């Protein structure tokens, strides 16, 4: 209600313009470059080349599968743990937070190094299984997934909701699936989409573990083909945007649905 009326913020606009130029110029340049595969004219040739390459679809499909697996495993590992920490084991929180922060401390290249060294030889000769890649991705997703679940749990009163459900006769599992999980939908979803975006463009693990994922594919194309690599950059950027907008749209839709049904 009480707004403060002051002089317009010229500086804010200046910074905004600087930001806009810095943020959009590389994208505009890349788009421009990707359309110049034919000399002296604009064309979609680079894109046609990409879309005609089976390697594009194969790597995309591979990364997509990895992303889905990663999301499923990550949710399964993180969400019940975060719930339990909120409900019963508050003293485990520092420990869990420490573990989920570790992937920030240990760079991906070091994680890759550690995984390869640990699982290269018997009894854990595991390095040739795609599951090791997924495990690595799950590790990378831990900070994001845990933070998402944690914010969601902070927003609802976990203990009261659980007690209410149990006083009405729900078992532990019923409480989790029927009461807690639906309330965490939006935050889990945002964690999942973030994970998806990360895995789809991931390069370090997939390249060092030698898997034909989308990241290494882009890098491979970049070595030989200049215009196609610019086109790939645009495609990858568009893909990230698509995922982001889809997430926003879903989360807002749910928020709106809740706003309509809640009061009454």
């Amino acid at each position, binding site marked *: 209600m009480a707004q403060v009326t002051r002089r317009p913020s010229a500086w804010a606009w200046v910074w*905004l313009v600087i930001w806009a130029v810095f*943020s959009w110029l590389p994208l505009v340049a890349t788009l421009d470059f990707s359309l110049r595969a034919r000399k002296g004219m604009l064309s979609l040739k680079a894109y046609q080349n990409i879309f005609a390459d089976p390697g594009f679809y194969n790597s995309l499909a591979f990364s997509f599968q990895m992303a889905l697996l990663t999301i499923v495993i990550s949710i399964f590992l993180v969400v019940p*743990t975060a719930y339990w920490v909120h409900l019963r084991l508050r003293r485990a929180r520092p420990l869990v937070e420490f*573990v989920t922060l570790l992937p920030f401390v240990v760079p991906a290249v070091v*994680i890759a190094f550690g995984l390869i060294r640990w699982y290269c030889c018997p009894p854990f000769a595991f390095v040739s299984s795609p599951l090791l890649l997924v495990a690595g991705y799950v590790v990378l997703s*831990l900070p994001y997934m845990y933070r998402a679940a944690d914010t969601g749990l902070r927003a609802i009163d976990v203990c009261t909701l659980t007690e209410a459900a149990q006083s009405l006769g729900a078992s532990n599992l019923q409480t989790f699936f029927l009461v807690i999980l639906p309330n965490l939908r939006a935050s889990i979803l945002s964690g999942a989409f973030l994970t998806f975006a990360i895995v789809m*463009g991931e*390069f370090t693990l997939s390249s060092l573990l030698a898997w034909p994922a989308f990241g290494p594919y882009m890098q491979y194309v970049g070595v030989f083909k200049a215009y196609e690599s610019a086109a790939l950059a645009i495609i990858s950027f568009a893909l990230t945007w698509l995922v982001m907008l889809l997430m926003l749209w879903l989360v807002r839709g749910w928020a709106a649905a809740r706003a309509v049904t809640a009061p009454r």
Partner: protein
Amino acid sequence: MAVKSLLVEKERINLRGVLRARLGELHTVWAWVPMLPFFVFAVAFLLLPSASIVVRSFQGEQGQFTLANIERIFTRPDLLRAYENSILLSIATAIFGGVLGFLLGYAITLGRLPPSIRSMVLTFSGVASNFAGVPLAFAFIATLGQMGLVTRALNDLLGRNIYHSGFSIYNFWGLSIVYTYFQLPLMVLIITPALDGLRREWREAAEGLGATAYHYWRYVALPILLPSLLGTMVLLFANSFGAYATAYAFSGSQINLVPLVIGFNIRGNVLYDPGLGNALALGMVVIMAISIAFYSYLQRRSELWLK
């Protein structure tokens, strides 16, 4: 007889008490069971592999304790250069991204811009902070590479090629610009909530007590923000220090970075010098651990204030 049965009775009560206490302990142990999958996973794929790096850094080929691996880093100028480059690049981009991100965060929170601009900037930042790695490298080669759009535009405008004046997207300052592209949005995303946490009453209280805008920023706002500002910049440091994909995609780069060296060590097929690789990775983890410890210390302080 009566005394004896009383004793037995007492014993039984005692026993029951002990049993109940044991059950209680068991109960708290049971509470950890639902955490098992998470911890087993973390131990298997994060803690053990990482810990093994630490241990093996101090092991020779026969498993004996040695400092030779770590000493080797200090005797090889190229490796020391890699650490120096990585650290300097991370500091530079943390400062660039930090300062620019703070100014932009200021613009969208306290700059009284329309709310739609704020949400647009934040959404874009969410995308851009993930737009690292290979495609980002492509984008900057198309922008500031030898044949890049901006390079050509500047050539037309100034009449000279910036590459002839010492600029290159592959050298230190070129890479700094590239890294700043994903550092800046990360800064915006993290610093915006902190800026939102500055309560309007603080400014009003200060003004009511006779403070000017300078006084307010100097004594109130900046000191309150300082932990988050520094903390986020430490995070940016770590973010850039560990970046492998972007660095790798500029493989024509003249500058050597630690993640690249470790990558080469792995790629040199079946770890051509495992001892050295471990030591290099250890060095990285140590630097990251120091910075993250610093970060969480600062974070706790700012949480205390902004509660």
